[in-house]
């Protein structure tokens, strides 16, 4: 496990350097093109020397580096809060969601983190979760209300395990830093391209350039423009590639911590089956979610995807035959796609992986597959368990797929729970309807919309009858 993190760190450092080199090269070229080098005639000992200095390139590099440093500092110290604010999350107290807190604390223990992350709720009925924060001491974890409503305890645990794994692997810090670098590159490139397009600096400097003049300078300008167009693309590809890799690692981490890969697998199935997008998501936060919040139900694998295709992640988790270790995950990962698969289109994947462990259309029929998959898996696990006492399976028997009616009821309950957090008050009418009073409702009386009985507002309580969110 530690070797995995260390190997990951090494690769990460390399990518950071590539990204930084890209950033500096971009700054240098643009600077060079905008402020061309000037020749000086220097006289010494009666001789005339030509001295060329390239101030523009250095200035450009300096500006690029400075921009990045400022943003990186802001992200390092405020990143978690900025992210949480950007996604409209609010911090939860223990009494708001005891089960969620329990699950998070369990995973904290399993992962050996020094303390549990702060827990946030995103009031959104889409199904998603993400983690933020620069290190385990300053981590936070956000889940959407929809996730709380649709997942059972084991599934929630799988998702939380995935997020905790991101925190353990420092993915959050790394992805934030990479994101900032990619963002800076985009910023500089766009600024430059626009400035050139609107007839800014380029021509002015070209006309006043030194004797070497036109040709070389024009070439530099073209080079700068090409780089400005290509660099953001490269930066984003690097960024996405890192993101995908880390998703697999976090999935493996979740399986190891929960000792129950089926939890996350069925959670991903539920999430994939839910077409609702997370409205509060945006491009920058996207890689931090458990599934890509911007792609719909089926996200195809491609160079420009932050997450591996969900269906494949499920297959890998289910393919971890009889064990819940990193080695098991790696084996399954190799069997199901192999290393080069990130570049492969989804259709090719479906062909190569068909007939392995799980039928290719597993995601299309979640309840059946979930039930069959778990039973099978349980027996395999218990086999292994008797051989290797240090890798026990901790989870209770899964509750399986919930019937639609029960799920609808849970969603309703979750909605009420979110309202309760927002200061709504409730009146349960004699006819069975539950009236929800927003905090700004100031009238003394309110009429039940179903049976038209009049209630006094003073009857309202902040308690939720029968809620166990």
């Amino acid at each position, binding site marked *: 496990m530690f070797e995995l993190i260390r190997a990951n760190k090494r690769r990460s450092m390399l990518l950071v350097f590539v990204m930084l080199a890209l950033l500096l090269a971009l700054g240098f070229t643009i600077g060079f093109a905008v402020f061309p080098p000037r020749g000086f005639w220097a006289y010494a000992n009666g001789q005339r020397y030509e001295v060329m200095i390239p101030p523009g390139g250095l200035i450009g590099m300096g500006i690029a580096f400075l921009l990045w440093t400022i943003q990186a500092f802001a992200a390092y110290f405020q990143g978690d809060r900025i992210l949480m604010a950007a996604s409209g999350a609010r911090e939860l107290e223990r009494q708001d969601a*005891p089960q969620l807190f329990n699950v998070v604390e369990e995973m904290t223990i399993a992962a050996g983190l020094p303390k549990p992350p702060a827990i946030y709720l995103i009031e959104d009925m889409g199904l998603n979760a993400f983690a933020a924060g620069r290190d385990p001491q300053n981590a936070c974890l956000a889940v959407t209300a929809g996730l709380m409503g649709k997942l059972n305890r084991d599934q929630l645990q799988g998702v939380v395990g995935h997020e905790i794994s991101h925190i353990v692997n420092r993915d959050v810090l790394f992805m934030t830093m990479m994101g900032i670098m990619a963002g800076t590159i985009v910023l500089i490139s766009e600024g430059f391209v626009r400035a050139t397009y609107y007839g800014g600096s380029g021509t002015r400097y070209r006309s006043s350039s030194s004797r070497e003049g036109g040709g070389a300078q024009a070439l530099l300008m073209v080079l700068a423009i090409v780089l400005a167009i290509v660099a953001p693309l490269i930066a984003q590809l690097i960024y996405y590639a890192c993101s995908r890799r880390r998703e697999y690692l976090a999935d493996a981490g979740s399986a190891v911590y929960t000792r129950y890969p089926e939890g996350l697998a069925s959670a991903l199935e539920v999430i994939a089956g839910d077409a609702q997008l997370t409205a509060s998501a945006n491009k920058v936060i996207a890689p931090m979610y458990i599934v890509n919040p911007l792609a719909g139900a089926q996200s195809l694998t491609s160079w420009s995807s932050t997450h591996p295709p969900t269906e494949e992640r499920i297959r890998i988790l289910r393919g971890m035959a009889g064990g819940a270790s990193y080695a098991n995950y790696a084996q399954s990962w190799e069997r199901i796609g192999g290393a080069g698969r990130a570049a492969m289109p989804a259709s090719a994947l479906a062909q190569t992986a068909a007939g392995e462990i799980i039928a290719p259309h597993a995601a299309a029929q979640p309840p059946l597959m979930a039930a069959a998959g778990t039973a099978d898996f349980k027996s395999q696990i218990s086999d292994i368990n008797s051989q290797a006492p240090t890798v*026990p399976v901790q*989870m209770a028997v899964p509750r399986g797929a919930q019937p639609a009616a029960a799920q609808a009821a849970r969603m309703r309950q979750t909605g009420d729970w979110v309202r309760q957090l927002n200061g709504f008050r409730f009146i349960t009418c004699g006819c069975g309807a539950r009236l929800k009073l927003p905090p700004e409702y100031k009238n003394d009386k309110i009429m039940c919309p179903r049976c038209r009985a009049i209630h006094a507002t003073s009857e309202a309580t902040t308690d939720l009858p029968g809620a166990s969110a």
Partner: protein
Amino acid sequence: MLPLIIAGALGLLVVLWVVGVYNGLVRLRNAVKNAWSQIDVQLKRRHDLIPNLVETAKGYMVHERETLENVTKARNLAQSATGVANQGQAEAGLSRAMMSFFATAEQYPDLKANQNFLALQEELASTENRIGFARQAYNDAAMQFNNKVEMFPGNIVAGMFSFAKAEFFEIEDAAQREVPKVSFS
């Protein structure tokens, strides 16, 4: 002169190596201690939760005095146990008592609908999980430490400073591991 320098350098290397291994051992031993204290916290939490549970259930399970008493007894036994192995056995007994308690509670729908009971049940289930996870972490730490203590060349340094192996925390007892006998008479 040169041989002296070489010998000195070699000696220094050996000393540095011993220091490195020693520090590594201490770090691992502290990790084991820390992991154990994590288990301890969770076991204590379980012991604290059980009286509340029994108190809540008492009103509903009037005919199940024995089950409730068993839980209380097992809990007191576990609370007073000392040492890794003893504690493991006592906790196993408590787990069994809890299991039969929850099985019995299934027959009391009023109890199962009680908010307080549901909350306690969630807390206890979570505590069970935490104990399990903490046990994993402890056993992992203990195994790492033991490997270092027993394997060459670490065992030389471990022997020099008398590092003792860590005990594993097994919550199942011998009886539980036996194949259950089924009779059809």
